[in-house]
């Protein structure tokens, strides 16, 4: 298995004694017949007995997601749809290409090229537009929508846990963040149903910006969803698996063809490129990012103030625990917390907790839990009913998302630890800390499209579901 995936996924690679043909369940489904519709103009009677043309079975990440065996052993399985070639091809096809850049990737470029996050963003915009991209957006903007939904979700779960009698609503808390696809995949495939009810139903910033672009921005721009090709730039390979989930597609009726034609499936995110892959693209085009001109940012879905400052929340992995903690402290206990939260290290720097005391009693207890080993301990606690946290920000990678497997690699002589420290510093360099609920873009999206956080419409577009993967017999056989 590729080392690019997060540790949670790598542990799931099970194929030691298995020959490649046996390793994958999908290949056992047999060969597909060639599509016969292309043969209509050929004679009805064919004299020479041609061998039946078969096309090789292709395995997509979707197949892998549905399987309880390995994730994927072969690099070649890495979706055609998730590659640089596919990205360039879609620009040339004349689709309206949108790029959504994550703030973690932005930091990766800033550190690599010695720029500020803002400079990196301005120059990345120039780079993408030179390729023909229509607009470059910022997933810290969609993340504010996610955070608002998470805050509402937490309050309702907290209230449910308080009002329930001893037996009821045991699965309402702790609420576990859902932005890490490595964690979600691991939970679905190996932990089964006991942990899934605790996971926040709110989509990740990647899928939220996807839904926003294909449902809302498209209308604003008078584009059909199928005319848009949407690419995200992420710190993480697992995000490719997330984008491939069936839950993140919807169908539309093709216009002008009222009868007969099947619905067109639209995916919220058509392709995910990692920071490293975008750097590769620059090298391919012989572009030095630092020498590019600045381009104005596309303000429609970008957290940039009128004065030209980037803004966002604390926390290199998205600030889920941070934001929900502040909101819950204020909403439930009337406590306004200014400045950074006072985290204490529990076991190691990847497992930290923060609590709120009211009248000498701990009323809120949140934790950041990064990396596979800490994830294991928290899962053990939940399973044995000994988890006393109200909220968990879980990420599969040690040091969280800034250290994602898709980030630009350390330079020669630079240790991984040095790099992550630079990334943590650069991440919030000249980035204003702003309450998501004050974000004017978010307010406008709720006003014009979703109503209010937690509304039915918000749930329809910004929430999702998780599915325990039942171990197939074939996968069990692999485990012999």
């Amino acid at each position: 298995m590729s080392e690019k995936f997060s540790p949670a996924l790598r542990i799931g690679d099970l194929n030691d004694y298995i020959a490649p043909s046996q390793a994958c369940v999908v290949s056992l489904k047999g060969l597909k017949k060639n599509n016969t519709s292309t043969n209509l103009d050929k004679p009805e009677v064919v004299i020479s007995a041609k061998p039946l043309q078969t096309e090789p079975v292709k395995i997509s990440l979707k197949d892998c997601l549905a399987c309880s065996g390995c994730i994927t052993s072969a690099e070649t399985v890495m979706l055609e749809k998730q590659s640089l070639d596919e990205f360039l091809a879609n620009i040339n096809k004349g689709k309206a290409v949108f790029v959504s850049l994550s703030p973690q990737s932005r930091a990766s470029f800033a550190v690599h090229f010695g720029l500020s996050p803002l400079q990196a963003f301005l120059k990345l915009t120039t780079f993408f537009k030179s390729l023909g991209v229509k607009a470059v957006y910022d997933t810290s903007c969609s993340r504010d929508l996610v955070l608002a939904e998470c805050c509402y979700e937490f309050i309702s779960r907290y209230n449910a846990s308080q009002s329930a009698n001893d037996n009821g609503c045991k699965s309402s808390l702790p609420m576990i963040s859902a932005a890490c696809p490595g964690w979600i995949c691991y939970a679905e495939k190996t932990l089964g149903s006991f942990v899934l009810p605790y996971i926040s139903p709110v989509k990740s910033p990647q899928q939220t910006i996807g839904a926003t672009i294909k449902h809302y921005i498209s209308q604003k721009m008078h584009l059909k969803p199928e005319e848009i090709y949407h690419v995200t730039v992420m710190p993480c390979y697992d995000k490719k698996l997330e984008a491939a989930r069936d839950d993140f597609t919807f169908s539309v009726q093709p216009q002008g063809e009222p009868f007969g034609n099947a619905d067109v499936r639209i995916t919220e995110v058509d392709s995910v490129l990692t920071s490293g892959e975008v750097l590769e693209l620059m090298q391919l085009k012989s572009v030095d990012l630092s020498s590019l001109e600045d381009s104005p940012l596309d303000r429609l879905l970008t957290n940039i103030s009128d004065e030209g400052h980037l803004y966002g929340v604390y926390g290199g992995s998205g600030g889920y625990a941070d934001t929900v903690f502040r909101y819950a402290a204020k909403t439930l206990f009337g406590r306004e917390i200014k400045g950074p939260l006072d985290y204490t290290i529990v076991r190691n720097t990847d497992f930290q907790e923060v609590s709120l005391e009211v009248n000498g009693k701990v009323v809120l207890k949140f934790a950041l839990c990064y990396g596979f080993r800490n994830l294991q301990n928290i899962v053990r606690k939940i399973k044995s009913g000994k988890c006393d946290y109200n909220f968990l920000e879980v990420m599969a990678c040690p040091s969280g998302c800034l250290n994602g497997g898709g980030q630009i690699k350390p330079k020669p002589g630079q240790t991984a630890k040095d790099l992550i420290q630079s990334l943590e510093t650069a991440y919030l360099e000249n980035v204003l800390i702003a309450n998501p609920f004050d974000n004017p873009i978010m307010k406008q999206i709720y006003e014009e499209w979703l109503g209010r956080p937690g509304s039915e419409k918000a749930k329809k577009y910004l929430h999702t579901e998780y599915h325990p993967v039942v171990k197939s017999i074939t996968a069990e056989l692999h485990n012999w």
Partner: protein
Amino acid sequence: MDLLEGRFELKEIQTLEGHTDRVWSLAWNPATGSAGIPPMFASCSGDKTVRIWQHSGLQSWDCKAVLEETHTRTVRSCVWSPSGKLLATASFDATTAIWEQIGGDFECVSTLEGHENEVKSVSWSASGSLLATCGRDKSVWVWEVQPGNEFDCVSVLQGHTQDVKMVQWHPSIDMLFSCSYDNTIKVWAEDGDGDDWQCVQTLGESNNGHTSTVWALSFSPSGDKMVTCSDDLTLKIWGTDAQRMHSGDGYAPWTHICTLSGYHDRTIFSVHWSREGIIASGAADDAIRFFVEDKESSIAVMDAVMVTIVMVSEVDGPSYKLLLKKEKAHDMDVNSVQWSSLENKRLLASASDDGTIKIWELVSVP
């Protein structure tokens, strides 16, 4: 006494029957066999059970307890905590169980989950505060023992490229060794800031290492040497600078000292180094063999010049000799050989695919 000068015989004391499938592994309880406590060991099997055996006076070994209905598949490995109070068992059911002797009974007090599939081996550190597990998912896990029989996962180590066959802690310092189907032995240590664990050395083919699966390893009594056994039909002796290792002044690497080849013609599954310095091996040819260091030849070299361990191997070649070979020790593969730590007797237990355990005594013949 120089062992090489004596003549020895392996005397069968008793054959223990009870397991209904192959016996994979056994472990002597380190807190027994002295101060009037009768010696005790545990065995584990493909029959999903663990059996506890105890010496009941005279020549008789009895099954004292059967630990069942916890593991749902083969129990592959078992090991006692240094205090002898807890027993850890690793199973193909992907779990590791912790058992405590409460009164006369053994109760499962904790179950460690996390491995994706078969757990192959478990080892308790010398201090008893750390536990390691490894398995088919290629990973090595380090667990910290918490009060109340709680176990926290402190590290999940990915480095081996295949099935990890065995984990073994160094007998005196917190350094972990693992060996694998990928033909290597890896050494793992806590990193400088104590935040996580990392691989500090890999002993592979390029280090004069094994050319096929490494099945097991064992340390010399002083902890400055290690023996490994393999599917490549050899035993290998490795050494380190003991002074440097204990001083904490950087990592003291392990180097190849010598290879014992030509003695085995089938896979060697198990190897164990006695307190007295006798290496026992158990192999797929149903035989048990004993090796000792040929002190004369190595001392001669050591006296000649102050040489490094590497040079000894270059100059000297093998300095271990076969002491005894017991043909047909079992009817089938010998999966495990373990010396007891009894002071006054060279007592060995062996476990086999034939479903039996045998207790042996290595006695000198006049």
